[in-house]
């Protein structure tokens, strides 16, 4: 039972309508399914394929290219520790060792209670605040071992429930395009004329 819910099908249809070609909605819809289920399931990929008129293999073909999509059950919290240069220079490796010790797991695995998945990650665009990590893609800056321990305690106690949504949820709001203001997204094959504000002055 991991097809998109009725509500999410409505959301999906709205997203699809924003693109001149349906397949452009592939990545946003796989995100939507991951938000619903916590990871990307085969049923969800089949459902996405139906919605955008492609084969399930095409959905998996695209989705498997992207690192944020996970195809097996994942912890409620995904902790990504950055190891690229600026963070490496500021002690990312030691932070990773500490994190593995503290959680009792190696990077790439999930705690036995299913709460936390730990991963090595690449540059998170917060290089001046190294070393950094992201928990469900929410940044933590200048992370000391003590700060890491505090983060784990807070995640376990639920103290961060308001700040960090479960894995799969990215933005907590979605763009709404009001129908009465929308220009629309015609298929480029159906467009013959230039936009109204571009006047081609006759010679």
């Amino acid at each position, binding site marked *: 039972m991991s097809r998109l819910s009725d509500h999410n099908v409505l959301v999906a249809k709205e997203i699809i309508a*924003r693109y*001149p*070609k349906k*397949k*452009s*909605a592939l*990545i*946003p819809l*796989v*995100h939507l399914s991951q938000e619903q289920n916590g990871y990307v399931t085969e049923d969800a990929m089949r459902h996405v394929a139906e919605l955008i008129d492609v084969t399930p293999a095409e959905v998996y*073909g*695209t989705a498997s*290219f*992207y*690192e*944020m*999509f996970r195809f097996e059950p994942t912890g409620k919290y995904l902790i990504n520790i950055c*190891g*690229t*240069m*600026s963070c*490496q*220079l*500021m*002690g990312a490796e*030691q*932070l990773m060792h500490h994190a593995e010790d503290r959680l009792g797991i190696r990077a790439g695995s999930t705690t036995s209670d299913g709460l936390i998945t730990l991963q090595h990650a*690449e*540059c998170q*665009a*917060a*290089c*001046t605040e*190294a070393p950094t990590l992201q928990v469900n*893609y*929410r*940044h933590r*800056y*200048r992370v*000391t*071992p003590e700060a890491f321990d505090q983060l784990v305690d807070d995640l376990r106690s639920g103290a961060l429930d308001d700040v960090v949504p479960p894995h799969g949820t990215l*933005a*907590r*709001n*979605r*763009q709404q*395009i*009001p129908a009465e*203001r*929308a220009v629309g*997204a*015609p298929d*480029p094959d159906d*467009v013959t004329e*230039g*936009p*109204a*504000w*571009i006047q*081609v002055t006759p010679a």
Partner: protein
Amino acid sequence: MSTEYTENTDRVVSPLPWAPGFYPGDRPQIVTSRFQYEDGHTLERYHATGGYEGLRAALAKPPDEVAEEVKNSTLLGRGGAGFPAGVKWGFTPQGVWPRYLVVNGDESEPGTYKDRLLMECDPHQLIEGCLIASYAAGLSQCFLYIRGEMPLAHERVATALDEAYAAGYIGTNILGTDFGVDIVLHTGAGAYVVGEETALIESLEGERGMPRLKPPYFPAAVGLYGQPTIVNNVETLANLPFIAKEGSVAYTAIGTATSPGTRMIAVSGHVKRPGVYEIVNGSTTFRELLYGEDFAQGIRDGNDLKAFVPGGGSAPWFTAEQLDIPFEGPQAGAAGSMLGSGAVMVMDSTTDIPAAALSLVRFYAHESCGKCVPCREGGTWLYRLVQRIVDGHGTDADLQTILDVGQSICPGDMQHASSERLGLDAVPFPYKMTTICFVGPSAYVPIHSAMTLFPEDFDALVTKRGERRSIPVMAGAGE
């Protein structure tokens, strides 16, 4: 690794916690003027600080005049290549419709950290830039592609788009004119290579994010859905409201003739005050940026500078000898590197150079999309070789193999900086490459720079010919 874990409690914390890492300073502010406000991302603050006046000024003129103004400003693209935006717009073929705008907000070059702040702290400025570009170049739909790992930027931009639609800035008949465009927020899903503009388009079409074969060289001719498509970086577009409102003369009055305006630079690594700074383009030198009181304030703990990466992880390294080079593309190129995406990473004298280089080689090997063999295979080889050397199991033959693999990615002379200490002259830009995009060469660049400028650091780690002994299997197998 020899680098000690540093407790960062003594580091200076940004005065603006909602704009982490950003320091305003007493300099011209074109794109960061609203970072001082905690509510800089709201339409209310945007209106109160001259917001959407650039759009009004643009709509009062014919589109081609606006495009001409941008061309006259010599606004250089901020994504890494530094190509003039106005010229890029001019590559769209006449009479082919529809045309699209794709905003490259997939910032992920190591060390680079500016587009995320622009999207989080001042999303309306970016939206206004998109609108001005769409009006000037006749673009009828805009896709704002934001890196997936930036949910706060998504939330801020989504809210700003909703506000702007409701206020009549986006959609049909904008501000009562014929001009109409939709701006669609699109989510990435984690792939560095998607920052390459044709890979970005592939990704937006719902495909694996692999760069397209060239020619055609510019998506401006053949882009999204095969249509003319302008791909611009977030920071590039964020400059447009200023240019539209104040004019190209006011813009070119800042900076130098070849590199006008300002640009955002992130300085990270072993400096006293790592931060994001909006600097005057073209004239500010690396020395000012690394040592200036108003900038990074020098190397941490009173240490000496060993090396720095001047333009993001893909850029060949500089040392103290290159400190007086200004932020001017051709000068950085002649000195053997590039300015790239505005990211300086600083290594002090305590740095384990092979380990630092490894962190970049691993990054690019990891991010190879797999389309070009020299990158897919070569990058992985480089990563494994450097890892072995850093682990202490390397031989001098491995150093030679690294150069051999590098030759298959970048044949001929590889660019690097000069070194008086080693008696080396600079090898200027550009290098040759056997791959479609720059990910492959970028895996070789850091290790080539490190080995060229600091050969002794590698010699000290590897076993020499004649001294080699067999390595126990278990010792070599540790990952």
